[in-house]
């Protein structure tokens, strides 16, 4: 047996490696809904801009970063497949139309702006705008439905799943608005502030309704976890971050607002992790409950993915620091497609 990396074959590098990977996957999920979340927000807020200059500014903010942000979805999916293959296959097979609808929404969101700049034709550009806005609204909704269906195990066509979708749409609008407020000039920032505050109120209201529904129906047996101390802490922190964000926005401290806004999707991912663990996939029509311990791949495979993958993950985080460094500072409308 060739094993040049001298990896243990029958034991995990550390005993808690499966739990660590559960954490890493939830981290990738958080990175995805934080980073692509504000891309979705930019796409939705784009619909509120009539002025061409404003639209170009939004596209200039979106252009250099969205594709790299979207790769976190692929990182999330492939790491889930690498560490917990049964979870990957059941999550997607159980939510067939939602999952494929989501990737098609991502498709429209991605190609819209790219094709828009290729032609100076009003009806062409309008079609591309529709593709961008529609995709940006539908993608977080369907991804939220997918996550809700996963966590609450009540199927995609259910109130908890749909409310999770609505919640992800709202929180994406919040982070998108905060991102744009921090990155654009005062005129646009003011309007983004007002829209962002509205979206924050909608998000917090949505969370309250979702939690009420889940607690009353005990969807997926999660009511107890939500009412536990960590559950209450996460929900409480979300309320603090949301209300604090509104205060910061009203004081025009946009960078601080952005930080508090980005805490919201992060907390949402933490809630997903909390509600799942120690299970990683609940019992559904397609099979029994899977826990982190039962669904994880064999030691050698996970050790290999750890040794080869972890250092790269650190490098990836450095890439993002570099990328956001290059494109830091205020956005210029002319910046797009130059």
């Amino acid at each position: 047996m060739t094993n040049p990396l001298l990896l243990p074959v029958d034991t995990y590098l550390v005993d808690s490696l499966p739990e660590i990977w559960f954490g890493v996957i939830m981290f990738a999920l958080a990175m995805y809904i934080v980073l692509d979340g504000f891309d979705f927000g930019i796409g939705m807020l784009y619909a509120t801009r009539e002025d061409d200059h404003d639209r170009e500014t939004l596209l200039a903010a979106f252009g250099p970063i969205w594709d790299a942000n979207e790769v976190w979805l692929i990182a999330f999916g492939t790491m889930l497949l690498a560490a917990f293959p049964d979870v990957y296959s059941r999550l997607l097979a159980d939510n067939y139309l939602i999952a494929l609808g989501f990737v098609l929404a991502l498709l429209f969101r991605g190609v819209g702006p790219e094709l828009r700049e290729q032609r100076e034709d009003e009806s062409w550009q309008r079609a591309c705008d529709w593709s961008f806005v529609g995709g940006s609204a539908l993608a977080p909704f369907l991804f939220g439905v997918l996550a809700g269906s996963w966590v609450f195990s009540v199927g995609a066509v259910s109130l908890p799943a749909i409310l999770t979708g609505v919640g992800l749409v709202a929180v994406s609008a919040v982070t998108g608005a905060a991102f744009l407020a921090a990155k654009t000039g005062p005129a646009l920032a003011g309007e983004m502030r007002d829209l962002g505050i509205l979206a924050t109120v909608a998000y917090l209201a949505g969370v309250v309704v979702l939690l009420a529904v889940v607690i009353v129906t005990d969807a997926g047996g999660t009511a107890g976890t939500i009412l536990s101390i960590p559950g209450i802490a996460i929900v409480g922190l979300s309320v603090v971050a949301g209300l604090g964000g509104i205060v910061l926005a009203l004081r025009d401290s946009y960078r601080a607002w952005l930080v508090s806004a980005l805490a919201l999707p992060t907390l949402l991912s933490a809630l997903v992790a909390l509600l799942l663990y120690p299970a990683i996939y609940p019992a559904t029509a397609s099979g029994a409950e899977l826990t982190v311990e039962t669904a994880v791949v064999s030691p050698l495979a996970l050790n290999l993915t750890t040794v080869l993958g972890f250092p790269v993950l650190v490098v990836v985080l450095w890439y993002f620091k570099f990328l956001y460094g290059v494109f830091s500072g205020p956005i210029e409308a002319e910046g797009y497609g130059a």
Partner: protein
Amino acid sequence: MQPPTHFLDGALGAAAMLDGTVLFLPAEFASRVQFGWTISVHILFAALSIGLAPFIIYFTWKDIRTGSERYARLRSFWLKVFAVGFVMGTVTGIPMSFQFGTNFPGFSALAGELIGGPLAFEAKMAFFLEAVFLGVLLFGREKVSDRTYFLSSVLTGFGAWLSGFWILVVNAWMQTPQGYEMITRNGMEVAKLTDPIAAFFTPRMTWMYVHMINASVISVALLVAGVAAYIVWKKRDAKAWHTALKIAVLLLIVAAPLQAVHGDAYGRHVEDTQPQKFAAMEAHYETGTADLHLFAIPTSPDAIMNPSEENLFAISLPRVGSFLASGGDFDAVVKGLDEYEQNPPVPLVFWSFRIMVGLGFLFIGLAFWGGYLIYRDRLSDSSLYLRAMIAASPLGYAALLTGWYVTEIGRQPWVVQGELKTGEAVSSTLSSTEATLSLAAFVVIYIGLVVAALYTLRWLIEDELDELGAEPAPDDHWYGPIPGVTSDD
């Protein structure tokens, strides 16, 4: 297993039954067609990134080093094409990895330990690299130093080649799986990784990687040459595009013959490792000595759907198939398709193989013809050559696609050779309603994408011609005589 009911099945199923027709395809068939169709579109864009990478790096290098307008123009034009191709590659690539779960959960569950690692490495090592540095390449010319900018082009190109590596690690494992043992986990048969080196570097891996990268380079070189020939044909003094044409032809002179030599050896490797696929490529039905068909045309319409020795006019080397398969014995017995329980669709594999090989030889001819013209210093003056290159611009892609059909359809009925049949990998919870709906959506949307990509290329060319000051001449077509050139070839 009883197919589960789905909220859509009731309404749509009832509508289907009303007039007694079958509206929905079986879930397995629809899943296979969907995967085949979506990968066919995705691979066009993936190959564009891989093949265009060396051009982008070279043009960026020359632009920075010489500061010449010529290379700045070429860099800017092809970077726009690269950007569109990359976006299309991303948005069509995500559905591919999703379909492993949505449509073929049996495959992800069984092979997760083997394919999950490489796919995760692809995302982390290659996709991030490509996406981040393409962002810099597209929007950061004024924001970073020349050195960082050039490095970004190298890293973007390297990302494209590296993602090809990891995805082919997965595909090669599906062709010649090793480095695992079958165990039972949670009551399911799954492959457990036992030897990472063996699993990543399967016998097929290097064959596939060289063949695919080179095929991508050939396809894109033909595309670049075709676009350059068209612009030169429209605008005789477009110096930058004379350069682009020459570079593309020089690349073809190396890559096209290499593909033939390499492909020949690759064929023998397939014969060794996947005899059933090889028998389908040669339509070899009966066990016995095998001829090698160099060239075949159907003698009756029947031959298209059912090629066999009786209905083909073929130029064949008698018993060379046996000779190759056995490594030197003309009388060696080659197992025929009749001996297998289930076979791949022979006509698809047989004719795809022939189209690929035929096109490969055409490219060698075009490359050498171009080499002769470069030697005579008349590359951009030969009206016939320019027109031939314009006509040949999509053919590299035709060869690439048919080559993939040989590889993937030829492996059927297996999804993992000898281990898992495609039919067993398909989701048991997938209804034919869902499968048919998603297939229809993918067909419509992907056709739209390809059309949009082609229109984008056309607009980029029109803009380029505008900038070069070409006279708009709506009446003349490239397949007519070249304007302003009298010395025809």
